[in-house]
Every structure is written in C-alpha cells, then in structure tokens.
C-alpha cells in the first residue's frame, strides 16, 4: 500500500479562474494528508512536469494524482514510470469548463473529485506486468488466398509461421478457378491467377513451416504461449505459437435449400460453382444433353439477402457472375446472357469491369424478383420474373440457369454456453464445434460467432478482433469478401497477430486497452467456485479446474474487469482498479445533509464512450447539473453491485449507469459489458424494493459517442426526477 501521495493541481486552462485552488490545496493537504501538494499554472509544461519528476525521483511521493485536464488528454506529457500508481482528476472538462465559475456547487464538485482521486491513488499499488516465455511464431489455419497472404506477410516481416491446410494442396477456392478479376488498370480484362507462383514462394520460404492434409487437433494455452497439436494421417505433432490467424474461408450455401429457384428440377439448373466446370469444358455444353448452350440466365442473390436463407450480401456473387458472363462471351459472343439481380454490387474499380461486361450487346441485366423456375420440354428452363423494371411480369427461356449462390463462413460457431451467438448463424455452417481450432477454453472449442455466423466483434471499431484474444479471423470466414479483399484482410489480421505477440512479450494488454500493464489477480482462498467470472468473461480468459476454481490466463485477458464486477465475493482486483478502490471513492464523496436540499447523484460511466462524450460537453463549454459525481469504469461490465449499495447507504440520492449500446449492433468495447451491467441492475432493483427505496433512483442509459449533445439533458432529467422523489431516506444513517 502506497503511503505518500503527491497531488499536482494545474491552475491553467481557466481551472484557476473558475475554482478556488487554495481550498483545493487545503483538501489535499489537510483532509487527504497528501505527502506533497503543488499548484502550477502550466502543469503539462516542462517546468510543471519537472516538479513531478523531481518528487518521484527523490522518493518524496510514490503515487501521483494529476488534478488537471481529462485523463484522455495530455497522456504523452503525463507519462511517467508506467508501473507507478497514477490517477488523473478531471478538473478541466468535467468541472471548470462545464460548470459555473466561482460557484460553491462547482467548488464542491472539484473538491469531491480531488478527494476521490487521492483516495484511489492511495490504494493503488505499483503494477507488476505478467511474465513468461513468449513464442513469436504465428499459426495460420487455412491455406487459401487469405491464409497464404497471411503466412507470406508474417514470414516476410520476420516471424516464424506454421501454415496448416486440411486439403492436400494450397490454394483454397482459387484452385478451381481459371481466371481472376482484374486488379490493375484499365480494370477491364480478366487475368491469370499465378497460384503456382504463390505456392512456390511459400514452399521455399525459410520461415514458413507448411503442413498440408493436416488439421488442428487441439489448441491450448494463451497468446504468446499457445500449444497447438496438429494431426496428419494419424500422426500428431506439436507447435508452440504466439498468435493465430484463422483463414478457413467459406462454404457455398447448400443449393438443396434453393428448391424455390428450381435447383434439382433439371440438370440445366446449376450453381455458380458447378457452372465453372461447364465453362472449363470450353464448349458451354448444356448439362442435360451436351449441346452448346445459346442462352444462360443467372439468378443473383440465390440464397443471399433473403431472410429465409443467408440474410447478408455474400459480396462475391455479382462479380463472379460478371466474370462468368465474360467467359461465356469469350466462348460464344452470340450467346445470350441474362442476369436477374437485386442490386449489382461492383465496388471500387470493379465498376469498370461491370461496365465492360454490361456493354456486350448480348448481356441482358434486369432488376427483378424470380417468382418461378420451371423446366420446359426440350431441355430449356423458363424463369418468371416479377417486380421488374419493365413493369409487368416476364418469362425468359434459357438453356442453362445458374444460381449465383452465396456463401457461409467456415466457422464452427460456439457451444451452447454462448447463447447469444446467432442460432441462425450456427445453422449456415455444416461444421461441428471442435472441427477447426479445438480450443481447450472453458467457454468452448471455437471462436464465438456474432451476427450471421461470422466470428468477429464490432466490425467498424475493431475489424480484425474476434472474441478470443490473439486469434484473428481473416478472409471470407471473417466477412463476405472476394479474393482481393481477402488479401487485404489477411494483411490486417497478420499485423494484429504481430502486434499481439509483441505486446504480450512486453507483458502488455493487446486490445483494446493496448499497452495496459495491469491484470486482475484472484484471491482464491475466498473463492466459492460460483463460476460467475468464468461464465461472464466475454473473452474466455478464465478456465476452471474440476472443482470450478477459476484458472486465469493473463494473456487472454483484455483487462475490462467484467470478472471483478461479477464476483460476489469481491476477490478479483487489479492493482490499480478494484472493488475496494471504487467503494472508497464513493465514501470520499461529501454528501450534504437533508436540510441543504442538494442531491448527490453518482454516475458510473464507461470510460470508452460515455466519459469522452461528457468530455466533449466540457470542450463545448456546455453546462450540466453540478450535483453529479462521475466515476469512470473500464467497462460498465466491471460494475460491482456492492457499489450501488454503498452509495445508497452513504445517502447518495440516485445512481446513473452510462454504458455503450448493446445488442446485435453493440458498441461495447468488451462486447457484452454494458449488457451484463444492465442484467445486474435488474437484480439490484429487487433489493431496492425490499429496502423501500424507489427503483427509479437507479437507471441505466446507453450512450454512444455521437450522442454527446444529449448528455446534459439526460443528466438534468434524471436529477429533476430525483429531486421530485425527494432525498434518500438513508441520508445521515
């Protein structure tokens, strides 16, 4: 336990003009017994920083409280020894810039924040990063376009690579395709795919260990220290790797489910993959009788963008159809090619290729809905199209009908414990859990899948992250994409894998608290084996022994503190973030007596979205009610309900929880934190009613960064409601 806290108050940026800095100094020195308290008009300048460094170097202080701007500002200036206890008190954005200057309420707010900061810093201990031997090798699962690109990228960057492919040859889906889409100017001609060259490069690469016809039997351990057991022909062998890129690609959507589009009714109704073989034959032979086809009709979105099938756009079928149309016309320029689409998706430069293919006089594109597909006498197939651009239902006869089927990711979903993984998603893939990575994690053997069956997390904020630290999805298993996009995606995932092994080797958190040296420790003597932490950890960081005692894996951990919030015994703590620290901060708030009619509202704020949103309010110099006391949390999921009890018993009149949006399109940095917090809150409300306290005194809000402008009103409305309810009856007890 640190004993000598140094408090450094900045009076610049109008803090000194709005607040009585002298009174703040008194609070620090007299009340909080700070070892050192200094005021500087420009604390982040060289002179101010030198004062802090001098005190730390001279061992006058061992913990530092910076009472200045938001902890999100000036992080580079206030970076000292990363292991030293440090707390930032937000006097600028949250007080001076957002409350009336020279006002008693503002002053009280600043003093409370200072008390809370000093108490917290006083309870912090120096950080001791996790240590252990780290492997920097990278395992790539899948030897298709994405996997080969990832392996090449990592190997070229100087990392050892183990590339595992279940088939006997590399290449994946591209091995069956003759020509690829244009990837250079003028973007109008198909080009040869140099698959052999790519394979040769990998085979010859000194850093790549290649295993074909091999599968992953078992993956155990954690980032920096995975032990992967591979099997080939009943032989089994092990590799030690630091991170994993999963590039298992996609599976065509099962055409047997496309009976409504005629599949199975005639040999002349084929999928785009089957039609590739017709093209390869060179004569456009109609499957039923081998006569050259004179007309081919493509039905786009066969099974995609369909709520009864794949709900998403499979991203590659449009361009694939255009490519096949081009190949048809290369064989027979007179052949009529009909393309019935919902929308033609030709992103970026592909537009030029689309324009080129469309410009052929025998290419006929029509937006519409296929309502019936019926084989006719004489081997032709009649396709009826409704809601088309012609304004009347039409029927077209073609020799061959091609269903441009969509794709399902080759992910195996998760076991039953991950209930929120889309049930629909799981049904798209025929793979059984345990058939890809075979993780020995307590929460299941495969990457959890999110919306639509793809393993991943918030695609906008964290494009490469999955819900398992150190394991990155790349290519078509990650999101629908074509070969060119898969190459880019694989590069991104490889960079993430490299970042992972490097950060783990320094004992740092990888993501999203990149660089964090803290991690939770478990006081197991008091553990009751309730398993809440092992169930609730969104990242599967905690395994269990047979009795249910948690076995923590630091490198899998993202340091969100969800386990800390979950633990009813409060035995999970970080050295700089614990149940006790937050509880002590709550106790440090001075609650005015009932007669003063000054309510106190505690706000637990997610420090990723809600807290910076409130910073923006300060930056815009907009005001909000000064009766709130904000405590930032690493994630709202780290909220331990004991804090609410503490607050109410201290006489705090209301508690607001502000976390990120949750649900299918969640914005929570830790995937499930805000959702878990809301669930916990429901339980608390029952307790409140037993205590005869109004449940409205506690309310959870979902806030996204772009909604910052609503915050003053949200706070004001809540405070007014609390004023209507009257003071907390437990005040003064």
């Amino acid at each position: 336990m640190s004993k000598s806290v140094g408090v450094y108050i900045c009076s610049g940026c109008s803090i000194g003009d709005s607040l009585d800095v002298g009174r703040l100094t008194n609070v620090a020195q007299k009340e909080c017994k700070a070892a050192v308290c200094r005021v500087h008009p420009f604390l982040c300048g060289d002179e101010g920083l030198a004062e802090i460094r001098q005190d730390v170097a001279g061992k006058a202080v061992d913990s530092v409280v910076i009472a200045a701007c938001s902890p999100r500002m000036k992080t580079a200036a206030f970076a000292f020894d990363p292991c030293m206890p440090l707390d930032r008190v937000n006097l600028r954005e949250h007080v001076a810039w957002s409350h009336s200057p020279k006002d008693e309420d503002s002053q009280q707010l600043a003093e409370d924040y200072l008390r809370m900061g000093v108490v917290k810093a006083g309870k912090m201990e120096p950080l001791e990063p996790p240590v252990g031997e780290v492997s920097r090798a990278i395992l790539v699962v899948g030897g298709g376009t994405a996997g080969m690109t990832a392996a090449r990228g990592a190997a070229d960057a100087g990392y050892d690579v183990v590339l595992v492919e279940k088939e006997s040859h590399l290449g994946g889906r591209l091995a069956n395709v003759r020509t690829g889409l244009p990837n250079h100017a003028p973007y109008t001609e198909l080009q040869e795919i140099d698959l052999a060259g790519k394979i040769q490069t990998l085979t010859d690469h000194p850093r790549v260990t290649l295993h074909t016809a091999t599968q992953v039997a078992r993956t155990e351990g954690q980032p920096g220290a995975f032990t992967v057991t591979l099997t080939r022909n009943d032989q089994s062998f092990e590799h030690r790797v630091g991170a994993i890129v999963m590039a298992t690609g996609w599976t065509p959507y099962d055409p047997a489910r496309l009976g409504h589009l005629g599949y199975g009714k005639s040999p002349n109704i084929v999928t785009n993959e089957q039609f590739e073989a017709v093209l390869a034959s060179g004569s456009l032979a109609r499957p039923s009788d081998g006569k050259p086809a004179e007309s081919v009709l493509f039905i786009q979105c066969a099974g995609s963008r369909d709520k009864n099938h794949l709900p998403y756009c499979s991203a590659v079928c449009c361009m694939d159809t255009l490519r096949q149309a081009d190949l048809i016309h290369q064989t027979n320029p007179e052949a009529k090619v009909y393309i019935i689409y919902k929308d033609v998706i030709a992103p970026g430069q592909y537009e030029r290729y689309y324009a080129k293919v469309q410009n052929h006089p025998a290419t006929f594109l029509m937006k519409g809905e296929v309502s019936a597909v019926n084989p006719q006498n004489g081997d032709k197939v009649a396709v009826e199209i409704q809601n088309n651009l012609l304004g009347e239902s039409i029927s077209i006869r073609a020799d061959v009908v091609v269903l441009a089927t969509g794709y399902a990711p080759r992910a195996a979903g998760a076991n039953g414990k991950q209930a929120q993984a889309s049930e629909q998603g799981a049904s798209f893939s025929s793979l059984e859990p345990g058939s890809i990575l075979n993780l020995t994690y307590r929460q299941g053997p495969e990457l959890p899948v999110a919306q639509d069956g793809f393993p991943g997390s918030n695609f906008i904020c964290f494009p490469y992250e999955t819900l398992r630290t150190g394991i990155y999805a790349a290519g078509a298993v990650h999101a629908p994409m074509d070969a060119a996009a898969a190459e880019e995606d694989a590069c991104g995932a490889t960079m993430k894998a490299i970042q992972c092994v490097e950060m783990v080797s320094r004992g740092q958190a990888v993501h999203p608290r990149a660089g964090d040296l803290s991690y939770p420790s478990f006081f197991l003597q008091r553990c009751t084996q309730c398993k809440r932490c092992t169930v609730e950890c969104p990242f599967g960081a905690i395994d269990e022994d047979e009795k249910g005692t948690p076995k923590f894996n630091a490198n899998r951990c993202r340091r969100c503190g969800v386990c800390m919030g979950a633990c009813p015994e409060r035995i999970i703590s970080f050295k700089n973030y614990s149940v006790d620290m937050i509880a002590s901060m709550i106790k440090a708030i001075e609650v005015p007596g009932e007669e003063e009619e000054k309510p106190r509202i505690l706000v637990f704020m997610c420090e990723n979205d809600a807290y910076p949103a409130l910073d923006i309010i300060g930056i815009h110099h907009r005001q909000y009610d000064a009766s709130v006391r904000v405590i930032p949390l690493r994630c709202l999921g780290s909220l331990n309900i004991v804090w609410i009890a503490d607050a109410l018993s201290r006489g705090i009149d209301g508690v607001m929880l502000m976390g990120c949006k949750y649900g299918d399109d969640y914005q929570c940095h830790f995937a499930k934190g805000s959702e878990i917090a809301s669930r916990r809150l429901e339980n608390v409300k029952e307790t409140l009613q037993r205590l005869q306290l109004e449940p409205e005194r506690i309310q959870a809000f979902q806030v996204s960064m772009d909604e910052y402008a609503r915050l003053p009103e949200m706070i004001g409305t809540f405070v007014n409601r609390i004023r209507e309810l009257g003071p907390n009856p437990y005040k003064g007890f």
Partner: protein
Amino acid sequence: MEQVRQIEPDLAFIGELMSLGGGDVNKCVQCATCTSVCTLSTNNPGFPRRQMLLAQWGLKEPLLSDPSPWLCFYCGECSKQCLRKANPGETMMALRRYLTSCYDWTGLSRLMYRSAAWELGILGLVASVVVLLFTLPHNFGFGLLSQAGPQALSRVMLNQFAPVEVVHRADTLLALMLGFFLLSNAARMFYRLTRNQQIPASDYVRRLPTMLFQAVTQVRWKGCQAGDAIKNWLRHLLLASGYVLMFTLVVIFLPWFQVSNDSIHWTSFLGYYATGVLLVGAGWMIADRAGKRGEMYRFSHLSDWLFPILLWLTAATGILVHIFRVQNLPMPTYVMYVVHLAIAVPMLVVEVPFGKWAHLVYRPVAIFVDAVGKDAMARSV
C-alpha cells in the same frame, strides 16, 4: 393472375439500333437520372429510361408502338448528366431513325438509313432523272430552248426553257406523290401506336386541334428547360416557316412565282423572306453541327447532314436563279434552274417521305396519340 409475357431479345434489332447511333445503349444501368433531368418526360414510366431498357433488351415490339421517342426534342441534358455515358439522348435519336425506317412501308427508308450508298445513290438517281428531263426531250428544257431561236440566249426567257404550266403540273404531281407516301407512312405509324389501345374515336377527334397546333407551332419544344431550348425552338420555327412558305409558293403559286423575264413580282418578296430564313437557319445548323456545338450536334448520322445541306443548297441555287434572271444572264439562269431542281426534287421526293423530314408528321402524330392516351388515363383515375 397476372399476365406473364414471354420475352426474347432481338439481337439483330439491337445491332441495327447501335449502328443507327445507339452504340452506348448497353451502358445504361437504369439509374433514372435521365428521366429525372428531363422536363418533357411526364409519362409514367418516363422516357428515356424505359426506352433505354427496351432497347438494351432488344424488345422491338413495345418500341414500335411507343410515341415517346417523338416526344423528345433532343436538348441532350440526359446525355450530359448520364453517369454511365450511355447517351440516352442519342439513343432516342437512333430510335427515331429506326422508327422512321420502320413506318415506311416501301422499305426505301430502311435501305437508306442502313446504307449511305443507297441514300446517296437514290438521291443521285432522282437528280439524274431531273437532269435528263431537261436534256433529252425535244419539247422541254434545252431541247425546247434550241427551238426558241437565238433571242432566248440573249435574254432570259424561262418559259422557253421550262414552260411554267408544265412545271406547275409536275409540281402538283410531285406534291401529291409526296403527300401520299408521307401520309400513308403516318397512317402506319398511327396504327402501330394505337392498335393496342381501347380509346373511343371521339377522344381522338377532340384532340385533333392539338396535333395541328403542334405541327404548326412545335410549341411543345418550349417545355424543355435546357439552356438553349428556346433558341433552338425559334430557329426551327423560322426555318419551318420559310420552308412551308417556299413549298406553298412553288406548288400553288408557281405561275406567279416563276417569272419568265427579269421583272420582279410580289411573290419575289415572300421568296426573299423564305430564302433568307432558309439560308441563315440551315447554315447556322450546319455550322453548329460541324462545330459540335451542343449535345444535339455531338453525333451526326448521314441523314442529319443531308437534311440541312440539301435545304441550304436548294435555297442558295434558288436565289442564284433569281439573281441571274434579274441580271439577265440567260444561260447561267437556265443551268442554275436545272441545278436547283436537281437538288430540290430529290430532297422533296426522297427526304420528306422517307428521310429525316418525315418527322414533320411523325412528331405531331406522336404528341397527339400521347395526349389522347393521357386524357384516357386521367379519366380512368
């Protein structure tokens, strides 16, 4: 149960349309920008978007019964705004060329639109017939002149060269022939446009004034909001007035218009107006087309060139005949007279019923049928 129409694209039709100027039609992605920017397109579904789709798909039948191509005056705003450079304006022009060739039952039009050799050949053939008529018979043209004695070579005696009553009869015959072909083609067009419609005849009768009014004024053009629409409309109106005036003078008032000697008649002043308007109007259009000034002139088919050039040459040779006659230059007058007719006659015989000039009836008929259709639609709603 909704009617399902079986369709089969006509590749030959697409090829023909592309060769007539619709070469970019396949680039259309049906974004409807063209229809949105067109202020004349008030139909539903609007043009030129629908026509682009029908053309892309080679659906000839619906296009043959569609008045829309004639409702467009080709300001070119659609082509300018087209995101894919599919040139809907020029495609509409190509459709008009194609439709002109289809409405003609003789097949001559089709031959001429498809082949420059045919077009120039037929014009040349008619011109040769005119020249032969003046040179071969002994009682007309140069034959007659040789019988008139030396005085016909010392002063202009046009009646000794081309007696006005003979020419007048020939003019009338020509006008009747021309009218027959033009009107029979227009009737075919009217039949194509209306055969699938169930609209009572009284509706058509009620809208007849619209057709006549549009034919005379071309006032629909004013509805186009493109920058130079008003200018183009006025220029076209003046040109048309000069043309109609001249045609009337020649066909009806020839005995007063074709003066034998160097005297000047009241008809000469009308002739001056018509000639001036034709020379300036047609010359201006030729200059615009040569300089590609404006969307309308960016692409030129042979028929687009022949139209104003023949008109300009007719006016120029006509005024030269007049000048030579007034200057009392006998031989130049006679020769120029032959040249004048060798240009004017093929122009009238070939271009009016079978060429681009046919639009002078097709356009009012289309506007008429469209207006009747809209009346019926409004009543049914």
